[in-house]
């Protein structure tokens, strides 16, 4: 069993201390701990956070293994500091049965880079017509708690109401991809000044905001939990703030790219910037950052969306939506939130580990870094920078919008239940069985 002593690590901004990881849990925390038989890791100058938890990852397996597999995607996650990811249901076949979610869950356990929690589809084949067997997925080995038709909006109000009600039976949550389909027919990018100039069909903010408003009202009406995926507009933030003030049980996530990138990047028509929801304006970015800082938005979720070269090396209109996120998430959040003083490292831990784990109802993830807790830890170097090189990413795909950008902080090591998955910024020894939660 692994046994590590992390020397002089900084936990959430406190004075440097030692962290002893043994038997999969945090054994001791304190200064000058005895080495015992532990491997010593000099963590002077490094910050420890609970292993990051992603609520929104596309692993593409089964169906598009050319773009990503559970193994490659979870390795990318570990390198990004994650110890758990939620695998979205838009695979082929869709994750709409206990069989598929168990398959994904097992693939994750076998790869061993991080925990994989499959998200179940809300409706059969994500078609928005008939509820999938949500209970069966909840009761399966994968113990699904988050349900989403992500990529498609559950736009039928009755279906959405029933789903919200139904998952209460097992404390599940419906994660809505808020996109009114009629208002976004053939839409290509944020509707505004840039879309008008580029002649690309606009994707109005109201298409997102109107669905969020409706769903908040529905969730309030039936007393259910609602989670809103990848919030992208200032207007959505206002609605969420109102709903939370009303006591509606709504949570929300924002992607790293919506915290940093704006729609004027589309100007060269490079589909690496094509994403759903689309990149918005600088005003939206500012509102999203403020909302993440004040907690109106609960979590950062990557929406890591790998796409093969042939799905991106095309005309803008023919290209797939989505961008990579796992390996750059922490750097982007550090750039957008920490460098700007909007969040400290404790805040980052809360938005990228604690709250996502709580929303997903993951007991063994999201900290705290205290004796007895599962030893899921990420060590990062806040003083280092990383220049993003698409060719050196662990993901099978290369569609990162940050190529050539220099981002602050570097993930130095990731520990999954005490076992290093990443050491010195590189994959640790081949994964062993993880499992459990």
């Amino acid at each position: 069993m692994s046994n590590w002593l992390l020397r002089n690590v900084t936990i959430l901004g406190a004075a440097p201390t030692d962290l002893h990881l043994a038997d999969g849990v945090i054994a001791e925390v304190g200064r000058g701990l005895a080495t015992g038989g532990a491997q010593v890791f000099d963590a002077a100058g490094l910050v420890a956070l609970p292993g990051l938890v992603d609520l929104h990852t596309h692993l593409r397996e089964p169906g598009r293994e050319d773009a990503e597999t559970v193994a490659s995607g979870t390795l990318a996650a570990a390198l990004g500091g994650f110890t758990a990811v939620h695998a979205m249901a838009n695979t082929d076949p869709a994750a709409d049965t206990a069989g598929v979610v168990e398959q994904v869950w097992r693939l994750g356990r076998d790869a061993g880079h991080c925990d994989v929690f499959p998200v179940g589809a809300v409706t059969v084949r994500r078609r928005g017509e008939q509820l999938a067997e949500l209970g069966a997925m909840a009761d399966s080995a994968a113990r699904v708690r988050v349900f989403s038709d992500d990529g498609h909006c559950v736009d039928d109000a009755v279906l959405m109401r029933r789903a919200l009600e139904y998952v209460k039976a097992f404390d599940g949550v419906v994660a809505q991809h808020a996109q009114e389909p009629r208002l976004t027919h053939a839409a290509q990018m944020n509707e505004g000044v840039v879309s008008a100039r580029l002649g690309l069909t606009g994707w109005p903010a109201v298409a997102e905001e109107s669905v969020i408003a409706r769903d908040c009202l529905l969730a309030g009406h039936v007393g259910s939990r609602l989670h809103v995926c990848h919030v992208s507009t200032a207007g959505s933030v206002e609605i969420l703030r109102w709903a939370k003030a009303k006591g509606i049980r709504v949570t929300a996530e924002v992607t790293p790219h919506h915290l940093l990138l704006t729609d004027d990047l589309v100007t060269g028509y490079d589909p690496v910037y094509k994403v759903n929801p689309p990149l918005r304006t600088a005003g939206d970015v500012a509102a999203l950052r403020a909302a993440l800082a004040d907690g109106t938005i609960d979590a950062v979720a990557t929406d890591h969306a790998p796409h093969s070269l042939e799905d991106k090396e095309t005309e803008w209109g023919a290209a797939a939506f989505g961008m990579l996120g796992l390996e750059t998430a922490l750097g982007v959040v550090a750039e957008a939130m920490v460098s700007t003083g909007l969040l400290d490292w404790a805040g980052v831990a809360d938005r990228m580990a604690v709250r996502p784990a709580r929303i997903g109802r993951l007991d063994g993830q999201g900290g705290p870094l205290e004796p007895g807790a599962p030893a899921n830890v990420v060590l990062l170097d806040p003083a280092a920078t990383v220049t993003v090189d698409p060719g050196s990413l662990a993901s099978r795909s290369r569609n990162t919008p940050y190529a050539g950008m220099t981002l602050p902080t570097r993930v130095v090591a990731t520990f999954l239940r005490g076992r290093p998955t990443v050491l010195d910024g590189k994959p640790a020894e081949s994964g062993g069985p993880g499992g459990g939660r």
Partner: protein
Amino acid sequence: MMRHLLSAGDLSRDEALLVLDTAAEMARVAAAPVKKLPTLRGRTVVNLFFEDSTRTRTSFELAAKRLSADVINFSAKGSAVSKGEGLKDTALTLEAMGADAVVIRHAMSGAPHRLAGWVRGSVVNAGDGTHEHPTQALLDAFTMRSRLGRLEGLQVTLVGDILHSRVARSNVLLLRTLGAEVTLVAPPTLIPVGVEDWPAQVSYDFDRVLPKSDVVMMLRVQRERMGAVYFPSVREYSRRYGLDAARMAMLPPESVVMHPGPMNRGMEIAAEVADSPRSTIVEQVTNGVSVRMAVLYLLLGGAMGGASE
């Protein structure tokens, strides 16, 4: 001179005027007994049309042939390569063929920009989706200048489906560069969100704009737009935004009426207007060849690609 012509907005005032002045000389060739120049002998121009447009393709083809370039018509519409991966593969094919210029028409906005990143030759945007059609704007400006003698200070009114019009986008950018004042007239549903950033006025009232218009350019309105509820009926559209004889009578005496074609007679433009002496519609077609000759000459005639020997 630039290497590609992707957007009318890429042209400086001097460059735009150089194109128009060069086109004026090219127009003399069209009047000569031998309508052919040896200028681009040995150069290859590829017409890469992913969308049917006989008139634009023919115009470019004639322009290239009058300059003695070899012309290859590469019609990709309907073939297996009409989307995605196809464009890049096609670009590599054109590279291998040694195309000096690629004239591209594509249903997707920005396709010429992508192509320009994949080929060494010059790329000319011959209309991309709902984005731009820069040579159309150049020929329109050329036509206005030859009819009215100037562009500076002209009041130009564009009427119709501004939202989906590549002609409108290119004209707004170019006319602004050349000092004309542009007013856009359309039902509010056919004006893009974000238009406030354009160097143009917007009006929903055609009749108010007519008396101060030196040029009225009518844009084609596709009947399909009615299905997408942009307007209630063809009749209502035509009544509010169509140019008929009564409206034409409200124009100042010297004003001209333009249309990039193809026209919907009886919808955005009445037959008697299209055929009136004010109409420049036939000249526009003639001028299109001269302007495209000028563009090909300026992009290809020079040492842009081969200056480093």
